[in-house]
């Protein structure tokens, strides 16, 4: 966690610096009032200060020997990260095929991937959960609420 706080704090500070750079191109103030750049500039400055405070705090703690063991014990679980990464990949693929395949079929493909590929549920359970979910969302959002969804070659 300590190493993560140092890296995270520095990354956030870098991000806020980039925002400050962009915000400095906005009009900071008019004759009698703050302009569109006023708030973003000050938010960025405060953001940089807080990010550096997190990094600095963690750095100071890291020097304390007692906390090195704690840092080591907080390593990320690779299996868990793989499941999260795979799910996000599946969601990205779903988004890229929504317009071509239709929202409901794309969601169905994603849910099959999630339940069978990522969660490794038994086939009947995974297929059942996926079918049940798409039928439920179709009934609620399309049939009852009349939401116009992107439709694909199957007409749904």
């Amino acid at each position, binding site marked *: 966690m300590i190493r993560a706080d140092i890296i995270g704090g520095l990354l956030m500070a870098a991000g806020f610096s980039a925002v400050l750079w962009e915000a400095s191109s906005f009009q900071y103030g008019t004759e009698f009032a*703050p302009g*569109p750049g006023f708030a973003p500039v000050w938010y960025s400055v405060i*953001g940089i200060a807080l990010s550096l405070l997190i990094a600095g705090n963690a750095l100071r703690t890291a020097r304390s020997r007692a906390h090195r063991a704690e840092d080591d014990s907080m390593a990320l679980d690779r299996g868990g990260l793989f499941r*999260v990464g795979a799910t996000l990949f599946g969601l990205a693929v779903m*988004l890229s095929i929504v317009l071509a395949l239709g929202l409901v079929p794309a969601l169905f493909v994603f849910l099959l991937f999630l339940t069978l590929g990522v*969660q490794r*549920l038994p086939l009947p359970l995974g297929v059942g959960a996926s079918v049940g*979910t798409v039928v439920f969302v179709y009934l609620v959002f399309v049939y009852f609420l009349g939401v116009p969804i*992107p439709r694909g070659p199957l007409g749904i």
Partner: protein
Amino acid sequence: MEFNDLILGFSIALTPSNLLFALLGVFLGTVIGALPGIGPSAGIAVLLPVTFGMPPVTAMIMLAGIYYGSMYGGTITSVLINTPGESASVMTTLDGYQMALKGRAGAALGMAAIGSFIAGTASVVLLMVAAPPLADLAVTFGPPEYFALMVLGLTTLASLTSGSMIKGLLMAVVGLMFGTVGIDLMLGAPRFVFDNVNLMDGIDFLPVAVGLFAIGELLFNLYQPVRTEPIKAKLSGLLPTRQDWRDSYGGVARGTAIGFFVGILPGAGATIASFLAYATEKRVSKRPEKFGTGVIEGVAAPESANNAASTGALIPLMALGIPGSGTTAVMLGALTLYGMQPGPLLMSTHPDVFWGLVASMYIGNVMLLVLNLPLAPVFASILRIPYEILIPVIIGIALVGVYSVENSVFNVGVTVVFGAIGFVMRVYGYPAAPLVLALVLGPMLERALRQSLQMSLGSPEIFVTRPVSAVILAVALLAMLFPLIAWFRSRRAGLAVAGDC
């Protein structure tokens, strides 16, 4: 408050459709509260799109039902499997689970339901009495006072969220920053849009809230699967005995008072209310050494407090238009999506929404009691559904729900991106509630800030020369300094644990 207003409220709340949606709200709220890993913020955010076909008052009745229903739902898992369904039920695990181990799970759940009913009903009376005068007072507020109130809400939420205060404040600043994306409403200049037309209107709060609260949480559950143990406790004897009553009535009363007043404070919320109620009960108890071993007042006090707090939290939302927590921030966003302007004028411009909601909460609390006493075993059986099945169901509803608000695939993408951000935040201890609250308040806060400085010709003295804003800002400063002072004092005492302050 006029009697006619309440009559109007009941005439709205007692229509068959509103009764049905109040029942649906408290039922869904109880289920959401019972499910570990999905709290009221996520539940309301995910189900919000489903309410778009409804009249605003019906939708608010259902959302409020989910909110206070979830407070009770969390109790079921706390008592039966020692796992709080949501954070406000953490304290209930201490004595509730011990009671279950002694074969008194039914009494714990029964007292929690009755305590929640008493607290919920009493706090609705207080809401009805307190909100209108506060709204009348708030009508006299100008931009500096509103700016100060919003700063107070953000700083207290950031300071009081679990973990690091600095991380909480940083997340609030990130939320404010996201709130600046889009066309500047005062001068019409585009900011951070990068020629993307989807960003011209800014970043909608719903994809962010669903992403951070729901998708981020589900990804975390995929990363670290929720392990629920099978329910072994026997559910019988739900009605408390006479001795249980004698032991609990003080706790219910104190829990109600503490919960309501803590709930009003911006940023505090039901979790802190239940902690304070438990601590107070232990302090005043004649048998403090028994706390943690399964005493019924250890269940009654925090359960009454969290229910009262959820009603108290509606006061700043309805009277001032300023939410004090992640959940009420989502509800504020809902009001905006229904085309209403939250704030002190809401009660005069939309009396049907305010009074209909108040009346529905009386009815909803009765429904909650009637549902929870006989149906506690049914709600408990929800815990037998494998969590792995709920993950795809919730993701599916969340994504299609976000799409349905503006028929925008872009918003679904924003949800996924914020889901990934929410997961990283969850892993590294960055709280999501300050970010969502700041995103909702950001445009209002910036407008109030700029209008204030316009009034003073650019001088920031306006915030300290006006007494109300000066006092509120001083309280906000204290809210930030208090954890720091406590940290320095504990360090000086040699008790400090190095790390975040």
